[in-house]
């Protein structure tokens, strides 16, 4: 822990530590060396989110790396949560990259296993999986708190990190899901973001187990929200995205509207309703809004959910 009492001193850490309801967003870097994309997305989200996840080759598709994109987001006024998957890097690269990210001023890191290569555009790639996400969390915590590399060697200056993890309340076996979060918390996770929530009753059931284990007091839980852009997207997520639980009534509700603007409006309305409902769940410390390739919808949703203005942190 540093002099100011914070682990990393990021906006996100300060807001969550203060007990303020946090809002995070998500940006997918572009599939080319176009440096303007992150700049534009950051400008859209600036002031509406406390920090933004920068995805790491999401769905196993090659994009600008999360470190460069995270740096670009911060240059444009939005704090980054750099995602790091175990799929593409071994422990040398994961430690080197976090040191590099820290020297660039990145303070929030999200430790993930990563979608399997078979889903992406290089299904012939060799998956690394040297560590798993829990090993990764522990490694970064030891770098920060013990100033030690995974091998045990010591370092002069530690990376100051606010360490995040993800968990999917809708994955199976359900009885393991809260216990797996416990394992991540014990490994050193400071905050966690959930998979997109569409099945609210199931999420509440999971939160009951999380609270029974006392985890909501040890880790800041951000509930995942994805605004649905149309019935096609809802159907796609229901059928093809691993680990998603989209109840049929959600698909039907959006599909009942006309395609285009009416369906988009319904998707945004649904997101706002869900944010309001999830904010009432004991132990939910914030929301993580994943507007996949639909960042312009975020300001409106945050505003309508009554989450503006975002707190200014010193």
């Amino acid at each position, binding site marked *: 822990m540093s002099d100011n009492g914070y682990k990393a001193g990021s906006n996100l850490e300060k807001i969550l530590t203060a007990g303020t309801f946090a809002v995070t967003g998500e940006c997918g870097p572009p599939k080319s060396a176009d440096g303007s994309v992150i700049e534009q997305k950051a400008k859209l989200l600036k002031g509406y989110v406390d920090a933004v996840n920068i995805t790491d080759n999401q769905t196993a598709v090659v994009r600008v790396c999360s470190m460069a994109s995270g740096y670009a987001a911060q240059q444009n006024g939005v704090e980054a949560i750099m995602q790091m998957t*175990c*799929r593409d890097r071994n*422990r040398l690269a994961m430690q080197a990259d976090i040191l590099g990210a820290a020297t660039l001023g990145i303070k929030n890191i999200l430790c993930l*296993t*990563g*979608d*399997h290569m*078979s*889903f992406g555009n290089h299904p012939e790639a060799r*998956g690394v*999986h*040297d*560590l*798993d*996400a*829990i*090993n990764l969390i*522990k*490694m970064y915590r030891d770098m920060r708190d013990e100033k030690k590399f*995974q091998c045990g060697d010591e370092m002069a200056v530690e990376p100051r990190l606010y360490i995040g993890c*993800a*968990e*999917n309340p*809708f*994955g*199976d*076996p359900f009885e*393991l899901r809260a*216990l*797996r979060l*416990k*394992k991540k918390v014990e490994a050193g996770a400071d905050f966690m973001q959930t*998979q997109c929530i569409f099945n609210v009753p199931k999420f509440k059931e999971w939160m009951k187990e999380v609270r029974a284990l006392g985890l909501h007091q040890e880790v800041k839980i951000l509930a995942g929200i994805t605004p649905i852009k149309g019935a096609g997207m809802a159907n796609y997520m229901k059928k093809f995205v*691993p*680990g998603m639980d989209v109840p049929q009534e959600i698909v039907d509700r959006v599909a009942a509207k006309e395609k285009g603007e009416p369906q988009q409006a319904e998707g945004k309305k649904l997101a706002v309703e869900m944010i309001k409902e999830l904010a009432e769940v004991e132990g939910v410390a914030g929301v993580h809004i994943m507007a996949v390739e639909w960042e312009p919808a975020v300001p409106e949703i945050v505003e309508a959910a009554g989450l503006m203005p975002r707190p200014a942190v010193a």
Partner: protein
Amino acid sequence: MITAERKPFDEILELVDGHKKILVAGCDTCVAICLTGGEKEAEILASELRIKAQADGREVEVEHTAAIRQCEWEYLDMIAARVEEADVVLSMACGIGIQSLAEKFAPKLVMPAVNTNMLGMPQEHAVWLERCVACGECRIGLTGGICPVVRCSKSLMNGPCGGSHDGKCEVTTPEKEDIECAWALIWERLKAQGREELMFADRPPKDWSKSSSGGPRKMVREEAKPV
């Protein structure tokens, strides 16, 4: 056992293109049990090559043989005369057998007629499932006798990823519909054993230096060496 699949015929043809005396060498151990590269399969491949050569109007001599085990020097001695006569040997053994043959008779040209694919278990007749990657550090005592290194698509050591659904792996596709989630299986097994607490045991990063990542491995049993 070690399992292998025969390469596509066109690829095999390319490997022996231009050679006049071809020996197809089977191996009567693992690859024979998985019905890929035993003496019978060597005989079949030799026939196919002869028929193809005849159809193309090429003069090629194709013979076949098999070693009891291509991976052991003494069994290779038994087929030495046949190997010496050939311009090229098409080995149907696993990667170990092919290399043993190539080393024993170097610089004789030895080509692989199969792709060695796994250390597998015959689940039912004509179906094999991968069960081991010879990682050099077996921890299945902690996972109910089920290996997460090879049976979890991401080799996770600390429980199922978010893609586990109804006992199936997220990699499940129409072509690979049978992949079971290793961690769902492990959890059920540990429960049946009354050892649920093992699910939450600390599992530090794996030592991959004991796997092929550490370079080619060598095992010496001093006590077993001849005096």
